[in-house]
Structure formats: C-alpha cells, structure tokens
C-alpha cells in the first residue's frame, strides 16, 4: 500500500511506517522504503537483471529485519541496488520464510543520486503487526 516517513522518532536517522495488505507486499514496501531513505533519484532503469533469494527466521519481525539487512549486504558487498518486486511470506508455527523476486542494478554514481547511506536496520521501535487485515511495520534506519 504505502510507506511514510515518521519525523518524531529520530533526529539523526530515518524512520518509516509501512503498510500493506499482505506480509509479502509489506516486505516489498519495506524494501522500497529502504531505498527511498537512501536515494532521491533511482535514475533511469538500465534493464537490471532479476534475482531471487530466500530467507528464514524465527518470527516475521526477525525475518523482516534479516530481509532488510540482506538488501544492505548486497549494496555494500556487491555494489548492487536490490529492489524487491514481489515477495511471498510463509508463516509457520515456529518460523517464517520469505521468497523474494527482485531486480538487482549495479550502483552507478552517475545515475543513482544518493542522499545518505543506511548503515543498519535498528531494533528501535521495530515492529510488524497485523491490524484489521492490514499489515504494518515501523522501521528506523541508522544513517
């Protein structure tokens, strides 16, 4: 559905409230929020190649944290902007799994206009909730 910046949580960093109709859509929106925190202009798409990854954690909260951390990993280790396009989240009794399709574009300073770098996904007020059929998450990125 959407993500919006929240200005009263942090002075030095960037916070978002994210909402979506399904856990998978929530993960896609959270990925979009992460890149919105860093990039003011994605630049023209250069036909980024697709990629697919799967992650598992003990809860949906832990899974979203790991998922966003995975995007940071690709940014720093491989110089890739990995933008999730679709995600499927499977919630089990003792774990949660996400299978994500994404586009992976190589960072090009001539094309991508970055504002700041996100260093980490904090646990500060970090939450994933389901309220009235809507999934919401609060995420604070350390920049």
């Amino acid at each position, binding site marked *: 559905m959407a993500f919006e910046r929240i200005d009263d949580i942090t002075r030095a960093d*960037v916070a978002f409230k994210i909402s979506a109709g399904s856990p998978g859509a929530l993960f896609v929106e959270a990925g979009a929020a992460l890149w919105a925190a860093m990039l003011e202009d994605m630049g023209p798409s250069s036909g980024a190649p697709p990629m697919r990854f799967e992650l598992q954690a003990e809860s949906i909260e832990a899974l979203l944290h790991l998922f966003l951390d995975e995007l940071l990993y690709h940014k720093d280790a491989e110089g890739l902007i990995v933008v999730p396009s679709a995600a499927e989240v499977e919630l089990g009794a003792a774990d949660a799994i996400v299978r994500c399709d994404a586009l992976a574009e190589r960072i090009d300073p001539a094309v991508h206009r970055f504002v700041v770098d996100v260093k980490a996904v904090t*646990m500060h007020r970090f939450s994933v909730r389901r309220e009235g059929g809507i999934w919401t998450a609060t995420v604070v990125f350390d920049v």
Partner: protein
Amino acid sequence: MGKIRESLRKISDHCHEIPPSSRKGMLAPARIYGGDALLKSMDDAVFEQAANVAMLPGIQKYALCMPDGHSGYGFPIGGVAAVDPEDGGVISPGGIGFDINCGIRLMATSLTLSEIEKEIPALVDRLFARVPSGVGATGEVALKGSRLEEAMTKGALWAVQNGYGEPEDLEYCEENGRMEGADPDAVSQRARERGKNQIGTLGSGNHFLEIQVAESSGIIDANRAHAFGIDREDQIMVMIHSGSRATGHQIATDYLRLFLSAQHRYGLNLPDRELASAPFHSDEGRAYFGAMNCAINIAFLNRQLIMHSVREVFADHFKKSPRELGLRLIYDVCHNTAKLEHHEIDGKTRRLLVHRKGATRAFGPGMKGIPGRYTQHGQPVIVGGSMESGSYLCAGTASAAGTFYSTVHGSGRAMSRTQARKAFNGRELQQSLGSRGIHVRTASFSGLAEEAGGAYKDIDAVVGAASAAGLSVPVARLKPVGNVKG
C-alpha cells in the same frame, strides 16, 4: 514534558540527576550534563534512555549523558556507562553504536591561510576526487582473507607497515591506533564481505574531511595550543571524521541479533531491545568484545588511509613533501567504543568496561595513555561541529573523574533530517558557504542540506557546557574553509 524529565534533580548548574527511584529497575542514578538551555533542547527520549542505561547490570556510579546528548538507540548519543565485569557487568552493542569507532583525527600543517587561501577551492576539488566518499565508493585497498585478518588486529599499524603513513602517526592515536583484544574469528563472513571494499572511504551522513584554520582570535589556551602543534597565526589544519564503515555496521547488527536471542539465558530483561546485552564474561560477551575490537582497528586503519591520501594530495598540489608541509597528526579520538580502563571507585582502583557512544575519552594531565609530549596538558579532545559553525580542539582535565574521563564529541543534532531538508537547500547552501569563504564539495546536495549548520546545536554552548562542568577545556576554535562532505 515527559514524566522522567520531571524527576530531574539539580546537582549543579551544569549537571542534573534522575534518581534511581524514578524508574523501577534503575541500579544507579542517571546524570545529564549541560546547562538549562541545552537540557531544554534535548528530546524526552534522552532522559528515558539514560534511565534505561542505569538498569545495566554491573553499572558503576551513574549512567551519564554528555552536554551534546540527543536520542539514540538503547543509549542516548552522548551516553557513557562504566560496568564492572567482575560484578556481573554486561557489554551492550547499543552502548557503542552501529558505527563502531566512528571518530575524528586532526592534522596540523605548517601552512597559513594567507599562503594558500586562493588554492583552497582547487585543493577541495582534489581532495574530493582523491578520497572516496558517498554511497558505493570503494577504497584503493581491498582487503580479504589473511590480509584482512591482519588489518583487523593491527589497525593503523597495518597501514604504516604497508607504506600508508609514518611510525610517528601511531603515537598520536588513542590506543596507538591498535586496540588489543581483537579476535577476527568472531567476525562473520558477512561483515568481512560488506566492508571489504570500503576501507579508506569517508562514508556519508555526518562524515567529512575538512580544511580548517586556527585563527589567532580562536586560540583560547595558547599554552596547550602550542603544545598540540598550533604554533603560527592562521594555521591550516585538516580534520577527518569517519568510522569502521560496513564492517563495523555488520558486526553491530550480528551481535545485536545474537544478544537478543541469548540474553534471556542470563536473566537479562532490559526495557529496550537496543540495550540487548550479555555478561562480559560469557561466550557471547567475549565474542562481541573481540569482534568490536576488530571494528575499532578497521576504523583506525580507515582514518589512517584517508590521512595518507590527504598528505599525497597536499604534497602533489604544493610540490613539497608532507614533512616539508608539516602534515603532522595532532591526535585521533574514538567516539563509539567500549574499552577496559582503570578507574577509581570509592577509593579503590578497578578495571571497568567503559561504554562511550557519541562521547570522547578525555584523559587528564599525567594520566597513562597520553602521548609523552602532551602529558602535562591532558589528552587532545577533538569536537567536530558542522561545516558552518566550526569545530574545537579541547583537552582532558583532572576534574572529569565523575564521567570516567569522558566529554562531548560534537554539537549534536537539533533538527531531524527531514526538517533540515525542508529548511535548507543544498545547492543554495553550497553557494552561501562559498560566499563566506567555505568551499564545499559533496556527493549529495540533499545530504548537504541535512548537515547544514542550522540543523545542529550551538557548538560554542556545547563546548562551554563541557568546560563549565569540568569535563574538558577548550584549546582552540577551528574555522572551516573547505569541506568534503560524504
């Protein structure tokens, strides 16, 4: 006004205390330094977080917040806490921060403003071209495998041994640029991979590389200024603010996750997940301490490599050697660390783990750990301000025992990033600064707007409050004339 703020009790004009009775679980009082105006400018979360820090097992004397404090995660920025490892003391990644050993180094030159004023725009351009900054920038030295492990244990020494600096540089770094106790085996492959291309890069956000001038009107303590290396009118200085890059960020993330899952086994139930902790003497605590020390060393190495690039740019530009240009390191300080130090508690010297998050160690005159030529003057303390307001060189004092010899680290944010971007325009700011003799190059104009001087507290007030509280003394005010913004 938040409830916890209302419980503040005045200790002095520059120190207020939250008594332990204010919140269930506090094991010590929390002391917030700063005068009334600075306290008023602090967000309520500062007081909540300081009270939470006072709940850490093994805490000694007080949870502390320095005058530049603002809200953080777990600890406030400006937070200091000393725990006794032999008294059940814990280590918490939230007391150090994600950018482990984010810090500042200050170099002197033998140049003066009148000699190079016309060269500054070109010099800033060359520094911007040479020192990688912004997102996706990669350093000249890619480290992996055994070379990375060696660098993680040697820090700035690795740089010097590989031709990136002089042996003398090491003497003028906190811990001589090499933290003991680094354990590469405790660093995940993920952390190694994330940071492998970023060593020798500035980063973004509030990281910067700045050309400054020590004007004679800005010299506050001439004796100390001379001892630290400010020995001529309008002397040119260079300041570098950066940290452990993605290696440190991932180490902090890895251990935050581990501690969150492990802390219940140790009966720890702290009120904020960002305060996740483990006993210092536990497998998890020891592993984090070893990994954190690796990140401390990577940050020392990072700043050393950047300084080496600065020396090469100056040498090439002025066609003189770095030695002829007097490019000497005054000091390198850490802002985000936990270190084992000896402090006196109730008349007895004890070995404590001192967490400093957005705070600077400030050893007083005569204390061990200060370079010989500075011994009688106290440790240099470098306080980074905004590119508009300027920065300070200060010194540690004998009167800072109450904060475990800790003081301020910067001016502290007064505005959120979004507020700053609404209030300032990056391109206009660059032009305005240029017209005032401050030449700025940046990887991002929006990022520049977020770092505008107006987004920060008044650095004069912050440094003045630290001085009034006896935490450090100002030595010289440093005026920016050129800035490379990450």
